[in-house]
């Protein structure tokens, strides 16, 4: 039997509902229908009071979840697509994010964002917004790249006393499978070295991890060994693990599906330039999506987003090979 990334998210939610009476799932179509992607399928049948359909009101959905959280529940909000979370942005950034700082009362809220591009998704069903949320203080931002992380990090997100933005990748929903559900033991905030190597460090997260792993496989044939870091959590950013790796390899590339301006890649490069400049043998590089809205046609989209091909080119330039 194999379990998909999507199954893992559903199983994590089932586990949370079973083990913690305070857990509430709230979002559009999450009830008997089971959610637009079926991430809550079968849950409303078992927990009819705690898996609730919401009106198309992202602002009020998040506001409601904030109220529920400060009153002692552990709400999980499902946005139908990450892109629509911008309608609830004010509540996430200005209300949830600032609440603990202002009042000393924590807001244990999890917002699930079905993120990232899929073929034909187009400008408003493809976005990766982790940097937007990471920009605001008071939020934790998770970007799981594996089936185990999708499961374990979601469970951890709900136990955290702060608002967590859980960016789950839609492409991985069905494409990523594991034989068994092995719980991950690394805690939030710790990056994982997904592959060890001596020649260059590639820092990535979410679906891009799998593109980068492909590149590494190809380069191994040429006796080039990439070290790959899966950030897992983009905020907090595990700078220590990145610096330690750059100390070994002397070269850094960041690969992320999001837009380049002010993004996670830019943040990592800024930190390494600041704290590890002396470790670098070459200017650090990044590969991101193009700075345009995300195109609809698969032929445009495949060039718009970073993929194994463009990442490979960037690695070659980084290594000057």
């Amino acid at each position, binding site marked *: 039997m194999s379990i998909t990334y999507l199954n893992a998210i559903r199983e994590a939610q089932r586990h949370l509902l079973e083990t913690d009476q305070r857990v509430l799932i709230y979002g559009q179509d999450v009830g008997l229908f089971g959610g637009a992607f079926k991430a809550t399928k079968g849950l409303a049948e078992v927990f009819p009071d705690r898996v609730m359909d919401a*009106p198309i009101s992202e602002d009020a959905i998040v506001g409601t979840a904030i109220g529920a959280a400060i009153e*002692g529940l552990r709400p999980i909000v499902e946005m139908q697509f990450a892109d629509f979370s911008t309608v609830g942005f004010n509540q996430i950034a200005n209300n949830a994010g600032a609440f603990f700082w*202002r009042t000393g009362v924590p807001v244990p809220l999890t917002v699930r964002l079905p993120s990232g591009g899929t073929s034909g998704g187009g400008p408003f069903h493809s976005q990766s917004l982790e940097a937007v949320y990471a920009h605001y203080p008071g939020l934790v931002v998770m970007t799981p790249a594996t089936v185990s992380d999708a499961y374990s990090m979601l469970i951890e997100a709900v136990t955290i006393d702060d608002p967590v933005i859980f960016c789950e990748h839609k492409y991985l929903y069905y494409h990523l499978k594991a034989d068994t559900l092995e719980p991950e033991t690394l805690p939030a905030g710790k990056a994982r070295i997904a592959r060890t190597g001596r020649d260059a460090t590639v820092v990535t997260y979410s679906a891009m991890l799998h593109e980068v792993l492909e590149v590494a496989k190809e380069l191994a044939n040429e006796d080039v060994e990439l070290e790959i870091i899966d950030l897992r959590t983009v905020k907090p950013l595990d700078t220590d693990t990145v610096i330690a790796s750059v100390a070994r390899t002397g070269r850094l590339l960041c690969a992320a599906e999001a837009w380049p301006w002010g993004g996670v890649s830019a943040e990592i490069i800024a930190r390494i330039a600041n704290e590890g400049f002396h470790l670098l043998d070459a200017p650090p590089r990044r590969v991101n999506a193009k700075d345009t809205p995300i195109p609809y046609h698969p032929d445009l989209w495949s060039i718009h987003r970073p993929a194994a091909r463009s990442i490979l080119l960037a690695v070659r330039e980084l290594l000057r090979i």
Partner: protein
Amino acid sequence: MQTAVDTWTNSTTAPTSARLLEIFRSMMTARLLDEKLAALYRAGKIHGGVFLGKGQEALSAALGQALRRTDVFAPLIRDGAGRLAFGETVVEALRSCLGSPQGPMRSRDGNVHRGRPRDGYLPMISHLGAMISVVGGMLLSRRLRGRRGDIGATCIGDGGVSTGAFHEAVNLAAVEKLPLVIVVANNHYAYSTPIEKQTACRSLVDKAVGYGVQGHTADGTDIVDCCKVIGEAVNRARAGEGPQLVVAELLRLCGHGEHDDANYIDRRLKETTIGRDCLDVARETLQERNIMDAEAIAQLRAEITREIESAVQQVIKEGGPDPFAHDWCALATRRLADPPL
């Protein structure tokens, strides 16, 4: 300070002498506190702005007084009176306005952005309309955990009702039949913008029909009407009749903030009933009903003035925060704080 006696507010919506007296005391305290804040502002003793509630005290205090201490209350900009009636002390109000680290917001937020969420008293964010759904979420949580009998109340203006947040939250509360009272103070202006530029509705209460909630109107300058209408709305919410929208007509008798001379307010409006000062109306009402005579009112005024003066002295002595000793962590989970750069 003020103690809300439940039997006064539960059994009846009638504006009993006891209720009117409580409301009046909060109104008077709020007015005198506002005047003190304006003076402190002009003296340069206040950081940032000062936003007053002159002319809106009857409405605000009637709401605060009608609530129980176990209810949820999310007041807004002009609700100094309602906050006091709900149990806030003068010292506590001043701590936020003067930035004392001993205030509930510990110098991190100020003026009207204050509250104690653990006591059901929510601190507004500036973004108008944003707190309504938060009150709704608290009520939903209580319902799910089997705690019944509490209601929530929140305030907004004729401008705030135009926000998407208001619309989403009221609609959601209606869908979930939450025991929520939404009080709209229609003072006919949102900063300088007249009501005609906010809505094409004949009356803001018409919105109630669209949301499927019960609507009520009140004369916001009349303590008795405010007390009656809000008492009724609170009782209906508590009885499980779902959200209640109360729209009160009045005028703001001050600037938007103390920086503003409000010269845009139509003079003719000031001469109508809504231009009356609710505190004058309340004073007359109390005298007519033999609840208080002029002398007792003057005594009360003197007593509150002394209380405010001593609170100001106390809070000024508390000083400001120490920025170097401050805890600069925005997370409850400290291990997840991003390392400082």
